[in-house]
């Protein structure tokens, strides 16, 4: 960004917005917008409380469990679809449907199935993340050159070697891209799941603060979530770049 010929770094524009926010907040004109300094103070106080630490722990646990399930099931599902035509025909319809469906609508159903608690949140994370992982894995498997597989067979690779030393590696760039998108969708899943369940983790905090109109705390955890999602996505992106050198050379 440049203003009157001056290059303005990204952080500077953020600073402008924060200053603007602070001014509006100080006037007290808009009840929903407390001063930034107040939010930061609230945030610092918040992270020292046991409630916040417990909520963070619960959230991370649900997220971690849901993502582990999504990767553990999504990757094999994608491999199966990429390798077997009948399986692809049978499952493809559903996976394509779910990958673009408004899944939030299904969370109440999950609550009936799994009860109001962690299981539902884990299931929501799983449901949000698994389809894109399966689809991208399938695409990666279909991209593996036929001759690479023939090479494996002609040099007597066992089925385990064929997958473990050739096929999965050749499909790795797409699999990782799917996992990155899945991780981001999973964050949405954990937030939506917890909000609807609303007795767990950040969902319970959101519920508490919005009901008592405690806007400083409300904004503090909102910002924390945004920052966490961005951090996560950039970590996976950095990892993807490192293996891109061979994806390009394929």
């Amino acid at each position: 960004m440049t203003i009157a010929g001056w290059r303005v770094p990204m952080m500077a524009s953020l600073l402008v917005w924060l200053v603007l926010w602070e001014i509006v907040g100080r006037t007290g004109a808009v009840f929903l917008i407390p001063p930034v300094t107040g939010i930061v103070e609230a945030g610092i106080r918040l992270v020292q409380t046991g409630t916040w630490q417990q909520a963070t722990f619960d959230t991370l646990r649900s997220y971690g469990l849901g993502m582990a399930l999504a990767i553990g099931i999504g990757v094999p599902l994608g491999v199966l679809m990429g390798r077997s035509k009948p399986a692809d025909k049978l499952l493809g319809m559903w996976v394509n449907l779910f990958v673009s469906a408004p899944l939030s609508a299904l969370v109440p159903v999950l609550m009936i199935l799994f009860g109001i608690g962690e299981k539902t949140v884990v299931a929501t994370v799983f449901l949000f993340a698994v389809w894109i992982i399966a689809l991208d894995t399938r695409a990666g498997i279909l991209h593996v050159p036929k001759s690479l597989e023939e090479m494996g067979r002609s040099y007597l690779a066992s089925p385990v070697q064929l997958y473990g030393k050739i096929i999965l590696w050749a499909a790795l760039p797409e699999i990782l891209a799917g996992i990155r998108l899945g991780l981001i969708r999973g964050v949405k899943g954990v937030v939506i799941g917890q909000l609807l369940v609303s007795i767990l983790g950040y969902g319970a905090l959101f519920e508490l603060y919005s009901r008592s109109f405690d806007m400083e705390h409300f904004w503090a955890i909102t910002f924390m979530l945004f920052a966490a999602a961005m951090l996560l996505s950039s970590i996976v992106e950095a990892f993807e770049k490192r293996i891109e050198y061979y994806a390009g050379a394929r």
Partner: protein
Amino acid sequence: MTAMADTATLTRPAGPAAAAKPDAAVSVRGICKTYTDVEALRGIDLDIERGKLTTLLGPSGCGKTTLLKIIAGLIDQTSGEVLVNGRAVRGPGPERAFVFQDFALLPWATVMRNVAFGLELRGASKTEREEKARHYIAEVGLAGFEDKYPHELSGGMRQRVGLARALAVDADVLMLDEPFSAVDEQTRRKFQEDLIRLREVEKKTFLFVTHSIEEAVYVSDRIVLLSRRPGRISEIIEPKVDHRASPDEIRRDPHYLDTVESIWQGLRNYVE
């Protein structure tokens, strides 16, 4: 012997050594192959002599790759059988190695690991396979490139890696499907000379597919001409090129040029 009689041998009559029953490394018996609706091969009978370089030559789509992959055990024939060292082929085996047209290297592995990959799959220890791989990397002229990745090499060098990988597993029969089609003409000539030298050093049976008549005549002990689809054997030619002469002498030799010309005439009959 009847097969030999109607074989057009262009050159000197066979000497007493050739009169003895040749030792066939690979015997192809009545191979037919029909893909869902395409008849690719019809009734192929062929003995591939041990220690010789045999070339499959024919128009595009006549089933050369199909025949080679059936012998490699990579695809199943519709009928007929293939014997390698007298045993029927039921899939890939350790006595056969394949060099792929598109190299089929692992892009995430170094030259060293690629060349040693066949041995790695067989469970050879790291020191053992790297020692062997190092030997063959040098043999194909890539010493010093052990730690490079395929994308850092030229097309010609990549195919050398593919060749070294096939040599490293110490198979009896080496199958090469148009290995030089993706490399430039100069590299290709160098390759052809290397192939002739390798054949003499390694004492293996080479089965080679090419589109190029000159290449076939230059490198082969025996050329199997396939007809247009469905592929059948139309002629078997033994060029008898004297490889002790220098490459340039060979390429100017009237006998070499005549052989190339007569194959051309033969192919033209059914190209037109």
